[in-house]
């Protein structure tokens, strides 16, 4: 569902992402890991069409993001780490607005709006202005609006900021259940415990290059001694840094 070919983004002389090749099939929960400044957010911007690749391609559901952006975006949902929401709309009004820009029908809106607001625990505040929401409430509303148009691919950038443990559990379970129904999830996170728990496959990016790709078990097997994904991640990124210094 998500395909990148030699995806590269340069800012002047600095390459933020270099020749990234990824193939994420339908129904897979993919976690994208990397230290700060590794290129995760730049990759997400290119996957979602928010930034233009310097070279290489992105395809969502077989639709090239540069050639057929509207077809690709119809299949896509995105939850950023700090979502923009219209402060002076109510939660329900925001859902209606999102339905409009995704060209949904009135029937679909009526059928999906309330269950999603309920699923993410924001139904009780649906008629309040978003400016009165807490950060966690905004995040949950952002999830609800992301799923409104029934996307086939969801890109999530560090979604746990501001969520309480119960909400984290709920969102995690929801995402996992939806992947079983065929949804593809691309999640960038620093929470390695959650990645270990949810991911079908993990990619580790460092200095703009994809260093490791595989299932959690395969990634763990790369380490010199067995440990949690966190320990393995620290070891692998340290090795990558040392290799860079040597080079």
């Amino acid at each position, binding site marked *: 569902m998500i395909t990148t070919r030699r995806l590269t983004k340069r*800012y*002047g002389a*600095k390459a933020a992402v270099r020749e990234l090749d990824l193939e994420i099939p339908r129904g897979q929960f993919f976690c994208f890991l990397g230290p700060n400044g590794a290129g995760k957010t730049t990759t997400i911007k290119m996957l*979602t*069409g*928010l*930034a*233009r690749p310097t070279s290489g391609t992105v395809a969502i559901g077989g639709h090239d993001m540069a050639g057929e*952006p*509207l*077809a690709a*975006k*119809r299949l*896509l949902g*995105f939850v950023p780490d700090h979502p*923009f929401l*219209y*402060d*002076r*709309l*109510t939660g*329900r*009004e*925001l859902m*209606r*607005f*999102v*339905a*409009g*820009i*995704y*060209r*949904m*029908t*009135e*029937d679909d*809106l*009526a059928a999906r709006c309330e269950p999603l607001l309920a699923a993410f625990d924001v139904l009780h505040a649906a*008629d309040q*202005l978003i*400016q009165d929401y807490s950060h966690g409430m905004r995040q949950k509303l952002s999830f609800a609006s992301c799923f409104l148009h029934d996307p086939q691919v969801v890109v999530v950038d560090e979604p746990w900021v501001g969520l309480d443990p119960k909400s984290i559990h709920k969102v995690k379970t929801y995402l996992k259940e939806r992947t079983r129904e065929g949804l593809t999830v691309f999640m960038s996170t620093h929470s390695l415990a959650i990645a270990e728990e949810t991911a079908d496959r993990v990619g580790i990016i460092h200095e703009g290059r994809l260093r490791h790709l595989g299932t959690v078990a395969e990634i763990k097997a790369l380490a010199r001694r067995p440990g949690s994904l966190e320990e393995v991640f620290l070891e692998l990124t340290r090795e990558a840094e040392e290799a860079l210094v040597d080079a």
Partner: protein
Amino acid sequence: MPDGELVAVAAVGGRPAPGRRLSPLAAMLWAKGRVARHSLALVRRESRLKVAFVSVSALLLWIGIFVFALLGLRLFETFGAEVLGEGALTVSDLVVARMLSVFALALFVMLVFSNVLVAFATLYRSREVPFLVLAPVTRSSFFLGRFYECVAFSSWASAFLGSPILLAYGLTTRAPLLFYPMLAAFYVPFVVIPAAIGAVVAMALVRYLAGARRGPLVGFGLLALALLFSYFRGKLRSPDLADTATIQAIVDVMGRTQSPYLPSHWLARGVLSAATGEAGDALFYFLLLAANALLLLWLAAQAAEAWFFTGWSALADGGETRRRGRGRGPFGALDVVLRVLPQPTRALMAKDFRLFWRDPAQWAQFVLFFGIMALYVANLGEARSFARHGTWGAWATLLNLAACMLILASLTSRFVYPLVSLEGPRIWMLGLAPVGMRRIVWQKLWLSVGSTSVFTVSLAVLSALRLDLDGTSFGISLVAIVGATVALSGLAVGLGSLYPNFREDNPSRIVSGMGGTLNFILSMVYIVLVTLALAAVLLWNDGLARVLGDRGQAMAAAAAFIVVLTALACWLPMRLGLRNLERVEF
């Protein structure tokens, strides 16, 4: 809001049909309508005194313009007839049509400039843009959804200030009832044309200049302004009115604004035709405006398809790549200058200067202000011969001072008032620091006084030189403008602290709120009161001396009034603003 109401209000374009697919453009417009409605409802959370003061002041301003325009136009109607008898040509017959053309052309040029800036802020800088870019919405739909906001932002003020003048014109000429709805009909396509031009210019500039170095860009902008200025100055230069003050000379100059290719001329002709009941002509000019507005809107939408995303990406890329050398360039020099200040004032000053310079919407507007100032000073030479004649000299001093203070009020309202609000979500950083709100607010005041006085004092000196004012008038002008700089800066910083808007990042929107409006109105009140006091000194000192018994006493009374007013205008809002900020919880 109950569900039923949601469905009812959400039916963009009629009753919702269950199987009907919603339209992205309609959804964007609907959402903005709801935002506007909620924003109006939120006015109830504002202080009642502030709402009442702003509403009454706005109403009084509108009525004042209406009465002034009505009296002026009636004077024009009767002026010739009194001298030459009934049936003779009046000043109105000769001048009003041309005045309308001048008014419409000036408005048109201002709208084009302001729309370039508004379009940049609305299409590229608004926080909702990435959200909309992410959605499967065509670039042209995105553009049209944002375009109406450009039109609304850029044209509401001209509608507010122009409507009483045109209403007065309709009443003076005893226009038919159809004239009044026609005015509204003419206005819509008229403001769409500069908005579309401004949007195309903004998109072209971003597409081809994003990422370019700023220094040459500003130089190029100033050069373009200078060339534009010299072109129009050559076109519109009038003879020396003091020597050959003839109606014919004025008429000729005004006539040069009546090109049949200018939309402003179509508006003026249309309004005149509607006023005289020539429905066919009025309809022709309306259709001419509407057809051109639609064509330009279509072209702008095509430009958005071609240029928007590339420009937007380039703008985002440019922001991330530029490396800013430490201690080098203009900011390196600024850091050296600021070393005379103690910390943390120095750090606060350095931050404010850097943030200002790195926000294109801010410095681009500042360049425009600079252009207006240059235009004003350059044109003063035409009035020099007036200033040499006795009473006219006092009038020239007074009007020049009022103009300088108006420019100052525009600067403080637009750039100083939002300073505290622009700390926005970062205010916690200052709130946590061992600095204290008092120091922060006073730093904003000194920043404002220091930076605006460079311009206002230069303006006062240059304009005095251009008008060839005598020493006394020059001295009075200089002292008055320094006083006004302190007073209006204090007013803007104080009210900006009293009514901060920490949710908004766009300074134009901060300024257009209730607090910003209140600041502008109070600035106008200050200018009117100071001008009246100076008029008492410069023009009516004999009369004042008769009331107070002595010329020296009269001068002292006027000076004391100005000093007290200035101190009050600065101190009171600063005190109230500071008290409010000290109560803010983070």
